[in-house]
Protein backbone atom coordinates (compact mmCIF):
# COMPACT_ATOMS: atom_id res chain seq x y z
CA UNK A 1 0.00 0.00 0.00
CA UNK A 2 1.46 3.30 -1.08
CA UNK A 3 -1.12 5.39 0.78
CA UNK A 4 -0.15 7.26 3.93
CA UNK A 5 -2.64 7.55 6.75
CA UNK A 6 -2.31 9.83 9.74
CA UNK A 7 -3.69 9.82 13.26
CA UNK A 8 -4.08 13.07 15.20
CA UNK A 9 -2.12 13.16 18.44
CA UNK A 10 -4.18 15.94 19.99
CA UNK A 11 -7.33 18.01 19.52
CA UNK A 12 -5.16 21.05 18.82
CA UNK A 13 -3.33 19.25 16.05
CA UNK A 14 -6.62 18.16 14.52
CA UNK A 15 -7.95 21.71 14.64
CA UNK A 16 -4.79 23.09 13.00
CA UNK A 17 -4.70 20.50 10.22
CA UNK A 18 -8.41 20.91 9.42
CA UNK A 19 -8.07 24.71 9.40
CA UNK A 20 -5.02 24.49 7.13
CA UNK A 21 -6.77 22.13 4.73
CA UNK A 22 -9.87 24.37 4.66
CA UNK A 23 -7.61 27.33 3.81
CA UNK A 24 -5.93 25.33 1.00
CA UNK A 25 -9.31 24.27 -0.39
CA UNK A 26 -10.66 27.86 -0.25
CA UNK A 27 -7.59 29.27 -2.01
CA UNK A 28 -7.86 26.66 -4.78
CA UNK A 29 -11.63 27.29 -5.01
CA UNK A 30 -11.17 31.08 -5.29
CA UNK A 31 -8.25 30.97 -7.73
CA UNK A 32 -10.01 28.41 -9.92
CA UNK A 33 -13.02 30.71 -10.30
CA UNK A 34 -10.70 33.22 -12.01
CA UNK A 35 -9.37 30.72 -14.58
CA UNK A 36 -11.15 31.20 -17.92
CA UNK A 37 -12.36 27.96 -19.53
CA UNK A 38 -12.11 27.39 -23.29
CA UNK A 39 -15.68 26.06 -23.39
CA UNK A 40 -18.71 27.80 -21.91
CA UNK A 41 -21.15 25.28 -20.52
CA UNK A 42 -23.47 26.06 -17.62
CA UNK A 43 -22.19 24.35 -14.47
CA UNK A 44 -18.83 23.34 -15.94
CA UNK A 45 -15.74 23.81 -13.79
CA UNK A 46 -12.46 22.02 -13.17
CA UNK A 47 -13.24 21.23 -9.53
CA UNK A 48 -9.63 21.43 -8.35
CA UNK A 49 -10.72 21.89 -4.73
CA UNK A 50 -11.85 18.27 -4.85
CA UNK A 51 -8.17 17.29 -4.65
CA UNK A 52 -8.27 18.39 -1.00
CA UNK A 53 -11.48 16.44 -0.25
CA UNK A 54 -10.01 13.32 -1.87
CA UNK A 55 -6.73 13.70 -0.04
CA UNK A 56 -8.56 14.18 3.28
CA UNK A 57 -10.59 11.03 2.63
CA UNK A 58 -7.39 9.05 1.95
CA UNK A 59 -5.13 10.39 4.68
CA UNK A 60 -7.65 11.15 7.46
CA UNK A 61 -11.17 10.06 8.37
CA UNK A 62 -14.35 10.65 6.32
CA UNK A 63 -15.64 12.85 9.16
CA UNK A 64 -12.58 15.13 8.99
CA UNK A 65 -12.84 15.20 5.19
CA UNK A 66 -16.50 16.18 5.42
CA UNK A 67 -15.78 18.93 7.95
CA UNK A 68 -13.28 20.52 5.54
CA UNK A 69 -15.68 20.15 2.59
CA UNK A 70 -18.61 21.68 4.52
CA UNK A 71 -16.50 24.64 5.69
CA UNK A 72 -15.20 25.22 2.16
CA UNK A 73 -18.70 25.22 0.67
CA UNK A 74 -20.09 27.55 3.34
CA UNK A 75 -17.14 29.99 3.28
CA UNK A 76 -16.85 29.74 -0.52
CA UNK A 77 -20.55 30.58 -0.75
CA UNK A 78 -20.03 33.65 1.41
CA UNK A 79 -17.06 34.78 -0.72
CA UNK A 80 -18.89 34.21 -4.00
CA UNK A 81 -21.99 35.79 -2.45
CA UNK A 82 -24.57 33.99 -4.54
CA UNK A 83 -27.37 32.10 -2.83
CA UNK A 84 -28.25 30.12 -5.97
CA UNK A 85 -24.69 28.93 -6.64
CA UNK A 86 -24.47 27.90 -2.99
CA UNK A 87 -27.42 25.49 -3.35
CA UNK A 88 -25.87 23.90 -6.46
CA UNK A 89 -22.46 23.71 -4.79
CA UNK A 90 -23.96 22.05 -1.71
CA UNK A 91 -26.01 19.43 -3.59
CA UNK A 92 -23.11 18.57 -5.90
CA UNK A 93 -20.52 18.53 -3.13
CA UNK A 94 -22.45 16.33 -0.71
CA UNK A 95 -23.42 13.74 -3.33
CA UNK A 96 -19.88 13.61 -4.76
CA UNK A 97 -18.48 13.21 -1.24
CA UNK A 98 -20.81 10.31 -0.41
CA UNK A 99 -19.96 8.44 -3.62
CA UNK A 100 -16.20 9.00 -3.24
CA UNK A 101 -16.24 7.91 0.42
CA UNK A 102 -18.15 4.69 -0.40
CA UNK A 103 -15.86 3.90 -3.35
CA UNK A 104 -12.67 4.41 -1.32
CA UNK A 105 -14.11 2.26 1.47
CA UNK A 106 -14.87 -0.56 -0.99
CA UNK A 107 -11.56 -0.26 -2.86
CA UNK A 108 -9.64 -0.05 0.44
CA UNK A 109 -7.98 3.17 -0.68
CA UNK A 110 -6.82 1.88 -4.06
CA UNK A 111 -7.53 3.52 -7.43
CA UNK A 112 -7.93 6.98 -5.96
CA UNK A 113 -7.91 8.39 -9.50
CA UNK A 114 -11.24 6.68 -10.17
CA UNK A 115 -12.74 8.24 -7.04
CA UNK A 116 -11.85 11.59 -8.68
CA UNK A 117 -13.76 10.62 -11.84
CA UNK A 118 -16.76 9.41 -9.79
CA UNK A 119 -16.67 12.58 -7.70
CA UNK A 120 -16.71 14.82 -10.77
CA UNK A 121 -19.57 12.90 -12.40
CA UNK A 122 -21.71 12.79 -9.26
CA UNK A 123 -21.04 16.45 -8.53
CA UNK A 124 -22.81 17.18 -11.82
CA UNK A 125 -25.62 14.73 -11.06
CA UNK A 126 -26.16 16.50 -7.71
CA UNK A 127 -26.19 19.91 -9.39
CA UNK A 128 -28.60 18.81 -12.12
CA UNK A 129 -30.90 17.27 -9.47
CA UNK A 130 -30.93 20.66 -7.74
CA UNK A 131 -31.75 22.33 -11.08
CA UNK A 132 -34.61 19.86 -11.66
CA UNK A 133 -36.09 20.93 -8.31
CA UNK A 134 -35.49 24.67 -8.92
CA UNK A 135 -36.92 24.73 -12.46
CA UNK A 136 -39.37 21.85 -11.91
CA UNK A 137 -38.53 20.49 -15.34
CA UNK A 138 -36.45 17.66 -16.74
CA UNK A 139 -34.99 19.69 -19.63
CA UNK A 140 -31.87 20.42 -17.61
CA UNK A 141 -31.08 16.68 -17.70
CA UNK A 142 -29.87 17.24 -21.27
CA UNK A 143 -26.84 18.91 -19.70
CA UNK A 144 -25.83 15.58 -18.16
CA UNK A 145 -24.22 14.26 -21.36
CA UNK A 146 -21.86 17.15 -22.00
CA UNK A 147 -21.13 17.66 -18.29
CA UNK A 148 -20.28 13.95 -17.79
CA UNK A 149 -18.04 14.08 -20.87
CA UNK A 150 -15.98 16.91 -19.36
CA UNK A 151 -16.24 15.41 -15.86
CA UNK A 152 -14.23 12.38 -17.02
CA UNK A 153 -11.41 14.71 -18.10
CA UNK A 154 -11.47 16.98 -15.03
CA UNK A 155 -12.05 14.00 -12.72
CA UNK A 156 -8.95 12.24 -14.07
CA UNK A 157 -6.99 15.45 -13.52
CA UNK A 158 -8.04 15.89 -9.88
CA UNK A 159 -8.05 12.15 -9.16
CA UNK A 160 -4.51 11.54 -10.39
CA UNK A 161 -3.30 14.64 -8.51
CA UNK A 162 -4.89 13.35 -5.29
CA UNK A 163 -3.43 9.87 -5.84
CA UNK A 164 0.09 11.28 -6.24
CA UNK A 165 -0.45 13.44 -3.15
CA UNK A 166 -1.76 10.53 -1.06
CA UNK A 167 1.38 8.53 -1.87
CA UNK A 168 3.63 11.18 -0.31
CA UNK A 169 4.69 10.97 3.31
CA UNK A 170 4.37 14.25 5.20
CA UNK A 171 5.53 15.07 8.70
CA UNK A 172 2.50 15.86 10.79
Amino acid at each position, binding site marked *: MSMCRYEFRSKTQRLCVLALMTAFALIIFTVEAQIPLPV*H*VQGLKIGLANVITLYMLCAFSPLDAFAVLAMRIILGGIFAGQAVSFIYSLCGGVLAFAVMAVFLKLSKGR*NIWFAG*VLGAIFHNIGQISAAVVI*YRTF*YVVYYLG*VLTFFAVITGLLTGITAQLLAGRKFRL
Partner: protein
Amino acid sequence: MERKHIKSTVILAFVTLLIFVVSGAAAWYSYHKNNADKTAYIYHGDELLYTIDLNAVTEPYTIEINTEDGSNTVEVHSGAIGVTDADCPDRICVDTGFIGDGAMPVICVPHRLMIVVRDRGGDVDVQI
Protein backbone atom coordinates in the same frame (compact mmCIF):
# COMPACT_ATOMS: atom_id res chain seq x y z
CA MET B 1 -2.33 -9.12 -4.46
CA GLU B 2 -0.40 -6.86 -6.81
CA ARG B 3 -1.86 -8.70 -9.82
CA LYS B 4 -5.38 -8.23 -8.50
CA HIS B 5 -4.69 -4.53 -8.01
CA ILE B 6 -3.56 -4.12 -11.63
CA LYS B 7 -6.63 -6.01 -12.85
CA SER B 8 -9.03 -3.73 -10.97
CA THR B 9 -7.21 -0.67 -12.33
CA VAL B 10 -7.56 -1.94 -15.91
CA ILE B 11 -11.28 -2.65 -15.39
CA LEU B 12 -11.86 0.82 -13.97
CA ALA B 13 -9.91 2.35 -16.87
CA PHE B 14 -12.26 0.59 -19.30
CA VAL B 15 -15.31 1.77 -17.32
CA THR B 16 -13.96 5.34 -17.49
CA LEU B 17 -13.42 5.04 -21.25
CA LEU B 18 -16.94 3.66 -21.70
CA ILE B 19 -18.49 6.53 -19.71
CA PHE B 20 -16.44 8.98 -21.79
CA VAL B 21 -17.65 7.56 -25.12
CA VAL B 22 -21.32 7.19 -24.08
CA SER B 23 -21.50 10.68 -22.57
CA GLY B 24 -19.79 12.08 -25.68
CA ALA B 25 -22.47 10.50 -27.85
CA ALA B 26 -25.21 11.82 -25.53
CA ALA B 27 -23.69 15.31 -25.69
CA TRP B 28 -23.56 15.13 -29.49
CA TYR B 29 -27.27 14.22 -29.57
CA SER B 30 -28.17 17.03 -27.15
CA TYR B 31 -26.54 19.59 -29.42
CA HIS B 32 -27.62 18.19 -32.80
CA LYS B 33 -31.19 16.95 -32.22
CA ASN B 34 -33.33 18.18 -35.11
CA ASN B 35 -36.38 20.30 -34.24
CA ALA B 36 -38.86 20.74 -37.09
CA ASP B 37 -41.61 22.83 -35.40
CA LYS B 38 -39.32 25.07 -33.40
CA THR B 39 -41.16 26.43 -30.41
CA ALA B 40 -39.35 28.36 -27.69
CA TYR B 41 -40.48 28.31 -24.07
CA ILE B 42 -39.07 30.89 -21.68
CA TYR B 43 -39.24 30.03 -17.99
CA HIS B 44 -38.45 31.92 -14.81
CA GLY B 45 -38.04 29.17 -12.24
CA ASP B 46 -41.04 26.92 -12.85
CA GLU B 47 -43.21 29.73 -14.26
CA LEU B 48 -43.73 29.82 -18.05
CA LEU B 49 -43.34 33.42 -19.25
CA TYR B 50 -43.44 33.17 -23.06
CA THR B 51 -44.22 30.63 -25.76
CA ILE B 52 -42.87 31.64 -29.19
CA ASP B 53 -43.27 29.86 -32.52
CA LEU B 54 -39.79 30.44 -33.95
CA ASN B 55 -40.73 29.40 -37.48
CA ALA B 56 -43.37 32.15 -37.60
CA VAL B 57 -40.85 34.89 -36.76
CA THR B 58 -40.05 37.03 -39.80
CA GLU B 59 -38.36 40.09 -38.31
CA PRO B 60 -35.90 39.62 -35.44
CA TYR B 61 -36.99 41.31 -32.20
CA THR B 62 -35.86 41.48 -28.59
CA ILE B 63 -37.65 40.81 -25.33
CA GLU B 64 -36.53 42.38 -22.06
CA ILE B 65 -37.09 40.00 -19.18
CA ASN B 66 -37.01 41.75 -15.82
CA THR B 67 -37.63 39.67 -12.72
CA GLU B 68 -36.73 40.11 -9.07
CA ASP B 69 -33.57 38.07 -9.81
CA GLY B 70 -32.28 40.39 -12.56
CA SER B 71 -32.72 41.24 -16.22
CA ASN B 72 -31.89 39.41 -19.46
CA THR B 73 -32.24 40.58 -23.05
CA VAL B 74 -33.55 37.79 -25.26
CA GLU B 75 -33.22 38.07 -29.02
CA VAL B 76 -35.70 36.18 -31.18
CA HIS B 77 -34.77 35.29 -34.76
CA SER B 78 -36.43 33.10 -37.34
CA GLY B 79 -35.61 29.58 -36.12
CA ALA B 80 -33.29 30.63 -33.31
CA ILE B 81 -33.38 32.27 -29.89
CA GLY B 82 -30.68 33.37 -27.47
CA VAL B 83 -29.71 35.69 -24.66
CA THR B 84 -27.68 38.66 -25.93
CA ASP B 85 -27.29 40.64 -22.73
CA ALA B 86 -27.65 39.99 -18.99
CA ASP B 87 -26.64 41.62 -15.73
CA CYS B 88 -25.74 38.29 -14.10
CA PRO B 89 -22.15 37.84 -12.88
CA ASP B 90 -21.07 34.86 -15.02
CA ARG B 91 -22.87 35.67 -18.32
CA ILE B 92 -22.71 32.01 -19.33
CA CYS B 93 -26.26 32.41 -20.74
CA VAL B 94 -24.87 34.98 -23.22
CA ASP B 95 -21.88 32.77 -24.07
CA THR B 96 -24.16 29.80 -24.77
CA GLY B 97 -25.31 31.67 -27.89
CA PHE B 98 -28.39 30.94 -29.97
CA ILE B 99 -30.36 27.71 -29.94
CA GLY B 100 -32.75 26.39 -32.54
CA ASP B 101 -31.86 22.78 -33.10
CA GLY B 102 -30.63 20.58 -30.29
CA ALA B 103 -32.15 19.76 -26.92
CA MET B 104 -29.88 21.88 -24.73
CA PRO B 105 -31.71 24.71 -22.97
CA VAL B 106 -30.12 28.13 -22.44
CA ILE B 107 -29.89 28.62 -18.69
CA CYS B 108 -29.07 31.65 -16.59
CA VAL B 109 -28.50 30.10 -13.17
CA PRO B 110 -28.28 33.32 -11.10
CA HIS B 111 -31.54 34.64 -12.59
CA ARG B 112 -33.32 31.24 -12.66
CA LEU B 113 -34.07 31.85 -16.33
CA MET B 114 -34.35 29.02 -18.85
CA ILE B 115 -35.11 28.96 -22.57
CA VAL B 116 -36.07 25.65 -24.16
CA VAL B 117 -36.66 25.00 -27.86
CA ARG B 118 -38.58 21.90 -28.77
CA ASP B 119 -40.69 20.29 -31.39
CA ARG B 120 -44.30 21.23 -30.72
CA GLY B 121 -45.91 19.21 -33.48
CA GLY B 122 -44.14 15.87 -33.27
CA ASP B 123 -44.67 13.23 -30.65
CA VAL B 124 -40.90 12.78 -30.48
CA ASP B 125 -40.78 15.26 -27.61
CA VAL B 126 -38.38 13.47 -25.30
CA GLN B 127 -39.08 14.29 -21.72
CA ILE B 128 -37.61 11.60 -19.51
